[in-house]
């Protein structure tokens, strides 16, 4: 099936989503069959199912979509993508919506952006992720209560030698940072 790339879509939001997602133009072929929403392990928790989100994108309801919790409930299990009869890269569209929501300051319904930020900050500093660092900083700033609840588990992990207290640093962090900086500059987004 070939996407109609000749006509411009009326919905600016739809155009933006397509531009921001590799193979995103397939979204226009959505049949509204719901196999995505039916397949999603977290589908029951979503404000709108992915199918409904696609209809809203086509209807240019940017605010409703970007402030919803839908994409933040996505666990990247790819069931929707591998089952979609129209081959729409649904998981990737969820990533695009996450990025857009963060950029436009509309990500309200989840702590996921904070987790992501903590994670990538550490990676940019050390080159590797650092579970204890992530857990301590992210939970401390975002979910102090939860930190208390999981502290028991954390202690067991530590006792089993599964929680390192210091990060591993790669040798050529400078090189990685140069790549990241260049990529960030080219992408014109933070």
């Amino acid at each position, binding site marked *: 099936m070939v996407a109609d790339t000749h006509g411009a879509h009326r919905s600016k939001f739809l155009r933006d989503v397509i531009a*921001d997602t*590799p*193979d995103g133009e397939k979204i226009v072929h959505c049949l509204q069959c719901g196999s995505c929403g039916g397949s999603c*392990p*977290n589908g029951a928790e979503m404000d709108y199912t992915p199918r409904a989100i696609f209809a809203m994108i086509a209807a240019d309801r940017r605010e409703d979509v970007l402030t919803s919790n839908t994409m*933040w*409930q996505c*666990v*990247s*299990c*790819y*069931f929707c*993508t*591998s*089952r979609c009869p129209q081959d729409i890269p649904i998981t990737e569209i969820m*990533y695009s919506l*996450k*990025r857009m929501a*963060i950029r436009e300051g509309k990500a309200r319904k*989840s*702590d996921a*952006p904070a*987790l*992501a930020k903590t*994670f*990538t900050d550490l*990676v940019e500093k050390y*080159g*590797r*992720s*650092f*579970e*204890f660092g992530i*857990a301590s900083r*992210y*939970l401390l700033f975002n979910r102090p209560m*939860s930190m208390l*609840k999981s502290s028991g*588990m954390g202690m*067991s*992990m530590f006792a*089993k*030698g*599964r*929680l390192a207290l210091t990060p*591993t640093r*790669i*040798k*050529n962090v400078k*090189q*990685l940072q*140069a*790549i990241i*900086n*260049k*990529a*960030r500059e*080219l*992408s014109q*987004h933070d």
Partner: protein
Amino acid sequence: MKYAYYPGCSLEAGSAAYDKSVRAVLDQLGVELDELNDWNCCGATEYFSQNELVATSVIARNLALVDSEHDQLVAPCAACFLNLKKTDKLLAEHPAMKCQVDAALAAGGLSYKPGRVHVRHLLDILYTDVGPEAIKAKVVQPLSGLRVAPYYGCQIVRPLNGFDNPEYPMKLDEMFEWLGAEVVDYPVKAHCCGGHMTQISEPEAFELIRRLLQSADEYKADVILCMCPMCQLNLDAYQGRVNGHFGTSFKLPIVFFTQLLGVALGIDMKKLGFGKELVSAEPVIRSKLDGSSVGAGT
């Protein structure tokens, strides 16, 4: 057989048992793993939520670091595997993105040509490249009597795996049949463990974990086999919390498939990283198998 090896961050710390058992098992099977020099984090699912180009560039650095001696890169972690494979495909199919990633890599003095490195999952290497004959020939401790529930999770089989069915994978099932185990064919073996939801929203995550434990339990599994550090962490470390949350009493050991494969190959259990799991696996394994001989080997 010789592969570049990308262990990934989790295997360095929280899932050292996986790393340990991978190295021990592949060594036993005569497969050479050369750890990728100075690899960096693949960004898991987090980078893609923020900046696609940065995410791709960060991953592409690892592909670019694969030297000319190697054209196959093996990753045991699901997220690492998918990210590396996905990035190679993105670069091959989207010239505009490739152009930008090229520029980013160039800023670090690197370059990468899509398609040069074949990203493979560890299971694929064992199942396809090593194969049943070589593995069966090395089994010294058949796993007969042990009921194992192979758990595939998501990102190893979807969307880009290319070696097993994304809906109902069977390769790990088959491998453990070679080892003599009783393989539990339970329906949720490729369903989601909750991923990072344990960090974000516990009730949802716990429900997902419960579904897996419950199904494996209903099918009377003795142990669940994992192929991904995140899956192992969620099912193992959170098992107690899940029991608390739902009033259940699951006590299912969660081990990496390479650990149990190592047992079958007669490798010392200590060398396989047993004991690091929170729900202890050793007693079950020893009781189901002939306890005296287990793990006494090399």
